[in-house]
């Protein structure tokens, strides 16, 4: 890509995407759980709200404000339609982290008189777990539910965990690492029967699999734009208004926007984009999820038919169509990423994380640290193609084979050494 002096880019880091003879552009983006590329139709929807329709949606007295408000209300309707809600139940936020904070802290504070117990699961996103930890410091009691080997919460365990003081259950709809879909409808039913508010972090699920807040008895749900081909910095929170009405204590004070639940001037272009992204998802989800699941299965077969000792992390049955999380035994995840550096994916290896700990999600499934270090997350999305899938499958297979030739563990395993029985001299590290 060429840039002239007048339009210098703010960053020196150029992705440098290049075309190859077989029509694939490298690097290939296959990390759609981290973020999705924006759909051009979404960008088109947003553009007028930066310049000509720049008004503040809260300005009630002139057409600039009206135009902005119209965009906001259309977006509210589109989001509501995607999840079976009504427009008035949608509150705009800056994204998933804020939505999760508002939902959990807002419910905890509102229902403090009623009880102080919150239930969540160990595989939740940090935006949920750390919010719960914060509430523990304030005197709330939090139960962190374990998950089964397939990544799902056990409903009987959950039933037993609910007590008289439970005010909130917060369990995600789809996991960001392993793509596992929790039994949201069953959890919702359980919570409704016990009169407990049910919040779900649905950012990975919405737009990918059907979510209906009424059929699933969801009371509060977090949504974000950039996981469904919309913009970053635009999110929403669904808050049930009737049967039963759920109330939240605002976490940001100010002008009383969003019915007092979230003050702050609305990000109109972002909100317009989020709404358009939801409208597209609503329209195209049936065909798209089928196509993406087909690509995902093609990748899975391409890898698993050619490599032994590869393990899928989490349930294959209850899973997002675009997710594949695989551990490649005897190969360390970061070195694998380095070998396939023309493909953008993620690893649960400690070497790729700031904490030097392997993925807590994989550990929660009972995956050993060794296999957690060997995991790769593929996130297949709207714009991936069959040719890309085949390229990725080939590159992964050839790189794993090469690294296994380099791996003392693979050699030992082939010699029949039981790696679990070896006394590793690594205590000092």
């Amino acid at each position, binding site marked *: 890509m060429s840039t002239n002096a007048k339009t210098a880019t703010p960053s020196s880091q150029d992705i440098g995407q290049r075309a190859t003879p077989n029509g694939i552009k490298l690097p290939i983006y296959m990390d759609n759980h981290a973020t999705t590329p924006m759909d051009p139709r979404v960008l088109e929807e947003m553009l007028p709200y930066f310049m000509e329709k720049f008004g503040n949606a809260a300005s009630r007295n002139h057409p600039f404000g009206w135009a902005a408000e119209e965009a906001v209300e259309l977006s509210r309707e589109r989001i509501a339609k995607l999840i079976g809600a009504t427009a008035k139940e949608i509150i705009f936020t800056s994204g998933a982290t804020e939505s999760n904070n508002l939902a959990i802290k807002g419910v905890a504070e509102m229902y403090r008189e009623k009880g102080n117990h919150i239930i969540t699961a160990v595989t939740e996103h940090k935006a949920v777990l750390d919010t719960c930890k914060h509430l523990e410091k304030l005197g709330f009691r939090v139960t962190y539910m374990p998950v089964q080997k397939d990544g799902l919460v056990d409903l009987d365990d959950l039933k037993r965990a609910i007590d008289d003081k439970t005010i909130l259950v917060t369990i995600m709809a789809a996991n960001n690492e392993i793509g596992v879909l929790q039994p949201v409808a069953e959890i919702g039913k359980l919570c409704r029967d016990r009169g407990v508010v049910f919040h779900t972090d649905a950012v990975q699920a919405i737009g990918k699999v059907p979510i209906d807040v009424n059929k699933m008895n969801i009371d509060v749900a977090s949504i974000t734009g950039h996981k469904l081909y919309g913009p970053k910095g635009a999110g929403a929170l669904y808050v049930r208004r009737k049967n039963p009405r759920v109330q939240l204590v605002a976490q940001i004070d100010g002008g009383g926007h969003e019915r007092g639940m979230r003050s702050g001037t609305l990000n109109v272009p972002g909100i317009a984009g989020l709404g358009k992204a939801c409208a597209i998802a609503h329209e195209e989800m049936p065909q798209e999820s089928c196509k993406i699941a087909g690509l995902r299965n093609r990748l899975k077969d391409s890898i698993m038919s050619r490599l032994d000792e590869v393990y899928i992390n989490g349930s294959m049955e209850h899973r997002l169509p675009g997710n594949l999380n695989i551990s490649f035994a005897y190969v360390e995840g970061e*070195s694998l990423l*380095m070998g396939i550096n023309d493909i953008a994916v993620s690893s649960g290896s400690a070497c790729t994380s700031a904490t030097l700990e392997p993925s807590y999600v994989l550990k929660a499934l009972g995956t050993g*640290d060794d296999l957690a270090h060997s995991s790769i997350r593929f996130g297949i999305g709207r714009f991936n193609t069959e040719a890309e899938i085949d390229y990725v499958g080939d590159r992964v297979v050839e790189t794993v084979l090469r690294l296994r030739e380099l791996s*003392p563990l693979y050699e030992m395993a082939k010699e029949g050494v039981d790696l679990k029985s070896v006394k590793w001299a690594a205590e000092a*590290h």
Partner: protein
Amino acid sequence: MSYSDKVIDHYNNPRNVGSMDKKDADVGTGLVGAPECGDVMKLQIKVNPQTNIIEDAKFKTFGCGSAIASSSLATEWVKGKTIDQALEIKNTEIVKELALPPVKIHCSVLAEDAIRAAIGDWKKKQETAKPVEAQAAQ
């Protein structure tokens, strides 16, 4: 994370990959690290008993790119050195040569440990009259 050119070069073209016969009296084997920690290095040296010079070195590593590069470099550096000279190799020199960032320093430490473990194993063999069947590593 971005890697230095030298790390990338060792990762793409690792030197001295392979294995030697652990039972050979002239071969010392070091196996350090643990799969749970995400790094395991096996480094082997073949020593000329007359001169104490390391005539050959091989490695296999399970670990990140920096771990592979550190052990690959270690095999290059020990070759042609005497046992005593090889023991003088410091992890800090590996860090410098490969321009490892602070979070990857443990890879260089592991490579130094692997050299020491291999030499230790070889020395132990020299002290015993005949080759020992079971190796320290297993």
